[in-house]
């Protein structure tokens, strides 16, 4: 409990301003969630008429009923899991050893390689060259292409490299004296000591993969390979000018808006479930970037 008597008037005023600002930010970030959830549980008419503000109007589960009976929804949901899990594992397989190697002073050409990797954070080839590259590698419309194509990420490598660099040199030396080779030093010493950092980048990777939309949309054509985010986009663009759907939705109690909102809610749920468990790593990870321990 704070003892306000110890604070000057200026401090109190400052605290008040901060509280108001934080309150505004909270509302600004929370409201879209509440709004989407409310829309997803509202009737199609109410949503189209713009009546939904904070709570569901004419509460109904029709929109959910519509999407869960759509097999394409489940396929895209499954695909998102595949991209998220497969992509995260693939990324870790590349990022962890890469970060370790870059963190070692004995690596020949270390400065060059570090710069080489960091360079990609500021400059990249751009949409068309990347697309052509993927095409020529035979990775268009390929699930493996999505997993492999975005496996390496400079920011995460640098984050982990910095953490590895902060581990005292003597741990590596002790392990070497104990007979460990490079892989054993990494596997048995550095990785266990870097759990918080690895958890953090794992989280970054999961979130990025889960929300991955643009490249999946560009690179994937087959309906059975698209992730949830792309499916959502298809739904938004298709439903509103689909005559058949227009007839169905009039009869039923949902609309393009409520179906879209329901898909968004479904895509958020797993993140909402996981986030509280990894929140502490997320916060640490943000610090990791700026502060070298």
């Amino acid at each position, binding site marked *: 409990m704070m003892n306000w008597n110890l604070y000057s008037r200026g401090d109190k005023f400052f605290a008040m301003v901060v509280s108001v600002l934080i309150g505004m930010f909270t509302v600004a970030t929370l409201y879209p969630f509440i709004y989407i959830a409310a829309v997803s549980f509202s009737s199609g008419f109410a949503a189209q008429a713009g009546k939904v503000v904070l709570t569901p109007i004419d509460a109904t589960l029709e929109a959910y009923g519509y999407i869960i009976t759509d097999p394409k929804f489940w396929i895209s949901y499954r695909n998102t899991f595949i991209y998220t899990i497969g992509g995260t594992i693939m990324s870790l397989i590349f990022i962890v050893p890469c970060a370790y190697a870059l963190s070692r002073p004995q690596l020949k050409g270390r400065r060059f390689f570090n710069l080489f990797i960091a360079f990609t954070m500021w400059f990249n080839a751009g949409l068309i060259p990347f697309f052509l590259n993927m095409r020529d590698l035979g990775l268009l419309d390929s699930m493996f292409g999505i997993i492999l194509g975005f496996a390496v990420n400079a920011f995460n490598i640098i984050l982990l490299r910095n953490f590895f660099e902060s581990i005292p040199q003597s741990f590596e030396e*002790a392990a070497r004296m104990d*007979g460990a080779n490079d892989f054993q030093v990494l596997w048995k010493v550095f990785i266990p000591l870097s759990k918080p950092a690895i958890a953090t980048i794992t989280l970054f990777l999961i979130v990025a993969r889960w929300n991955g939309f643009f490249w999946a949309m560009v690179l994937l054509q087959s309906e059975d390979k698209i992730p949830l985010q792309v499916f959502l986009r298809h739904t938004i663009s298709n439903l509103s000018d689909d005559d058949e759907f227009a007839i169905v939705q009039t009869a039923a109690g949902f609309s393009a808006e409520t179906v879209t909102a329901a898909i968004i809610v479904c895509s958020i749920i797993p993140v909402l479930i996981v986030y509280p468990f990894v929140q502490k790593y997320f916060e640490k990870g943000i610090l990791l970037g700026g502060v070298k321990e």
Partner: protein
Amino acid sequence: MSGVNLSGIVKAYGALQVVHGIDLTVAEKEFVVLVGPSGCGKSTTLRMIAGLEEITDGDLTIHDRRVNRVAPKDRDVAMVFQNYALYPHLNVADNMAFGLRIRKMPKAEIKTTIADVAEILGLTPYLDRRPADLSGGQRQRVAMGRAIVRHPKVFLFDEPLSNLDAKLRTQMRAEIKRLHNRLGVTSVYVTHDQVEAMTLADRIVVMNDGRIEQVGTPMELFNNPANTFVAGFLGSPPMNQMKGMLTETGAKIGDAEIKINGAVAGHAGRDVIVGIRPEHVTLSDEGQSSALPISLDLVEPLGSEALLHARHGEDTLVFKADTNGDIAHLSGVGAVHVPSHLVKLFDAETGRALNLGT
């Protein structure tokens, strides 16, 4: 057979040479201490023996095998690090077992080895604890245990006691000595603490500026320092050094003259540095022959003895004196008498000890 042999060992980082061709032989089962000020190359030398630093030039052999290009793990040496370098995510037993597991020792054997070593080091009750839950002394013992379990041919110690408080340091120093007596493994120990060097070493190697200044037993080095650097480094407080000039009967320091045994005859007029150990003087009154007049600055009581900080001309001197339970009688000291056979002489230019045939 020699334990460790360094022959013309050079270490350079690019154009910067930090170790300039060291020759040193450590006998089997010997405890050798490398001592010197920071940056003298002692740790670098140890790390070259360990294989953690590449050797720029020269030959390193361990048990008569040339190991210049042999990986640390294949040199059969174990090292205790200054910060212990215990793996924080492993408990004591796993820390000690780490190297054995990597070497694929059978599980049952690992268990008995660790139990034996833990027993020797008094770590049995702590085997399940993580390093963070141990005291400094216990961590130090685990670090030694990790080295011992491997039964290496050579132990390397890199300032292992410098992170401990003074009391624990004294205690651990004795434990290391006892352990060495018991295991009889060739040991090379690096420290900047001359007390550790004196108490632990069979032989001390005094290093300065990437070179060896002198090698010898602690008492040899204490009694017969090869040069002013060694004289100033060993002993606490270190040897007093004053500029002087030889006469037919002794040495003239400023206006005073102290007697030195007959051997100086014939060298009169030579510039020298006169070395006097703080504990080698007796307090005397002014005016006594062969006494060095001093003006007392400060008396620091240490209990049974006291340190007298004094001046003679421009030289600042420190002497040791018994207090006999009282320092009042020390405040009036005006001169010290130095037994002539205990005075050390060094060449004023080179700093090397002068042996005038005494």
